[in-house]
């Protein structure tokens, strides 16, 4: 007799649940046992549209999910405003959690998530990251560790998409509402970039940030629909050992797209550029001549199926895994973002408290 497969519930049955969560669950070691959405009609339709087996239970709240037997893990795909309370409730019920990004709305919520992890030993929460997109992050981290770029002094993040706000694409309006989304593209996509950069640099500490935000592009929404997130965020942050990070994130810009991160060190640079033919390179100089080397690609991939395989291994053997952002890392990212938003609204540099 084979051991029963671990069970998972999918909470939040919107766009990303259908396009990324569900396709990854099917081939994974997990069996989908429940789907849940606060909108009951929606979750019923979801079950039907996705042709889920009759055994998959339909729930309209996490309480209902947690009352079911055989649920070992919960995959949270709701808007950010509910990430913290759903995750904490699931952890406290003894479940493992995979949760969409951004992890939460504020560092206060992230502290509460960290506390929930601590009081539930053996349980894990992983927030979705895109750290391993294109597969260069581990090699880049290794280059930094081995000192191949020398002392890193500057990092750059550039995420510019010309017309990719959710409102430009007819998506749900919560993406444009600070109370539900926490912020604009800086929260939504910026956190992916910060996660990858901080991972490569081994989670440096940040001391201060100067930021500016712009909101002002038309949304096409009715005037009654709240749209109060930034369209463009830019910042300059100072960290340990003189490290500086500059960043621009926008999903609405009248210029060509950019999608890159770079780390410059005293001996060389790492450039991860999605818009370039070579997506991951190391640059240095030999005798005054610039030399470029492709970064090796050796990563398992990034999708839901791999996350779930790693989670299953963790549940079976306690094997550590690093596919997502853990609670402490999410706190570091969230504190950083919070300070940046405060700097943008106060119009001055913000000193950061040490989140560690």
């Amino acid at each position, binding site marked *: 007799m084979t051991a029963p497969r671990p069970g998972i519930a999918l909470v939040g049955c919107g766009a990303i649940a259908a396009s990324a969560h569900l396709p990854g669950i099917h081939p994974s070691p997990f069996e989908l046992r429940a789907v849940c959405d606060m909108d009951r009609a929606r979750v019923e339709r979801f079950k039907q549209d996705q042709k889920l087996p009759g055994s998959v239970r339909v729930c309209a709240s996490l309480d209902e999910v947690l009352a079911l037997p055989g649920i070992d893990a919960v995959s949270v795909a709701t808007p950010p405003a509910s990430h913290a309370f759903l995750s904490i409730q699931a952890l406290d019920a003894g479940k493992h959690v995979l949760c969409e990004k951004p992890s939460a709305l504020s560092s206060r919520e992230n502290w509460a998530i960290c506390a929930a992890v601590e009081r539930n030993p053996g349980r894990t929460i992983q927030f979705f990251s895109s750290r391993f997109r294109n597969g260069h992050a581990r090699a880049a981290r290794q280059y930094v560790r081995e000192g191949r770029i020398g002392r890193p002094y500057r990092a750059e993040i550039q995420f510019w998409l010309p017309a990719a706000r959710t409102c430009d694409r007819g998506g749900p309006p919560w993406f444009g509402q600070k109370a539900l989304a926490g912020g604009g593209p800086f929260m939504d996509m910026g956190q992916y970039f910060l996660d990858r950069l901080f991972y490569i640099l081994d989670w440096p500490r940040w001391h201060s940030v100067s930021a500016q935000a712009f909101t002002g*592009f038309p*949304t096409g929404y009715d005037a009654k629909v709240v749209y109060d997130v930034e369209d463009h965020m830019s910042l300059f942050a100072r960290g340990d050992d003189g490290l500086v990070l500059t960043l621009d994130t926008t999903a609405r810009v009248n210029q060509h797209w950019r999608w890159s991160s770079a780390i*410059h060190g005293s*001996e060389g640079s790492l450039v991860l550029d999605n818009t370039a033919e070579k997506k991951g390179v190391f640059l240095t*100089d030999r005798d*005054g001549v610039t030399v470029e080397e492709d970064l090796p690609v050796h990563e398992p991939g990034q999708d839901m199926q791999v996350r779930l395989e790693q989670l299953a291994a963790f549940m079976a053997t306690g094997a550590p895994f690093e596919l997502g952002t853990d609670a402490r890392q999410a706190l570091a990212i969230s504190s950083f973002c919070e300070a940046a938003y405060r700097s943008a609204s106060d119009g001055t540099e913000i000193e950061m408290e040490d989140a560690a």
Partner: protein
Amino acid sequence: MNPTVKLGLAGCGGAFANDRAELAKDPAYGVSAVWDAEPAAAQAGAQAFPKAAACSSYAELLARADVDAVILTADASERAALACAALEAGKHVLCEGCGGRSPEEVDRILEAARANGKIAAFHAARLRLAGFTALARTYATPERLGRVYRVEAVLHRPARENSVPPEARAIFPDAGAYLLDQALDLLGWPKLEALTAQIVPHGATGEHACVYARLAGGIAFTLDVAASDRLRPRHALTILGDRGGLAIDHAKGGRGFSFIEEAPGMRAKLMESKPFFAFDPWGTSLRSFREAIESGKATEGTTPAQARELARWLALARASADQKREVRNLAETLAAV
């Protein structure tokens, strides 16, 4: 034709190399004397001009009766003192960059010019006067850009082209001043409210500086200049507004000029795109300097007030980089040391 302006050239480094060809072309100028702190450089510099003598000291150059005006491309750290000495010796001065590294240095130059009835002009407008900036100017209007909220000026060039001596590390004061001048001029010189900066030495002769500023009207401004063999060459100015955004990208393989505009359906639509084109670095500045000498007033290029403003940026950036914090007011910042 006899030259109308007889020149002494002080400094035979990288800027000099750029300017030499322009000077040789302009019949209104004649180079009488050349000086550099490095005698060999002075000798080599003088050879570029048929009638020029190599001077062994700056005093010797200033003492010459056949020098009406001095073009100063010496190290940024020495420029203000050398400019004042020239003005006091009764010569007009064209300073490379914004002349000084602080507004006080620029003030000293201007005061010396006033006291001696001579012209002090500044050549920070190298990029501003270029053809592609003229094209950008036709788009840099409130009608086309709407509300400007983000500006980025980047120049990463190889350190091997950074011919200033290592101790000068002049990428920031010089190239930085050109980029700033170009961007601020296109924007109509908005007020600098605060900035934060990092300036780090890079390799043997390089430097990498990054300035992030808050400008009046809610404009976030980045200036990023580097001389390094470990970075990809970049040279671009980007100005983003809520109606349109322009970019001048003249790195090798860059996009050239592009202007992208809001289009119906909240799309961004490419309106104009031009490949890279070369520019005339010095001609306009030299013409303008000559006009100023002849008429007492320059018509184009960096004005004294603009040179002073550029120098304020440079000094604030230096102070911010040293103090590792965002700074607002230069006097207060320096008093806090």
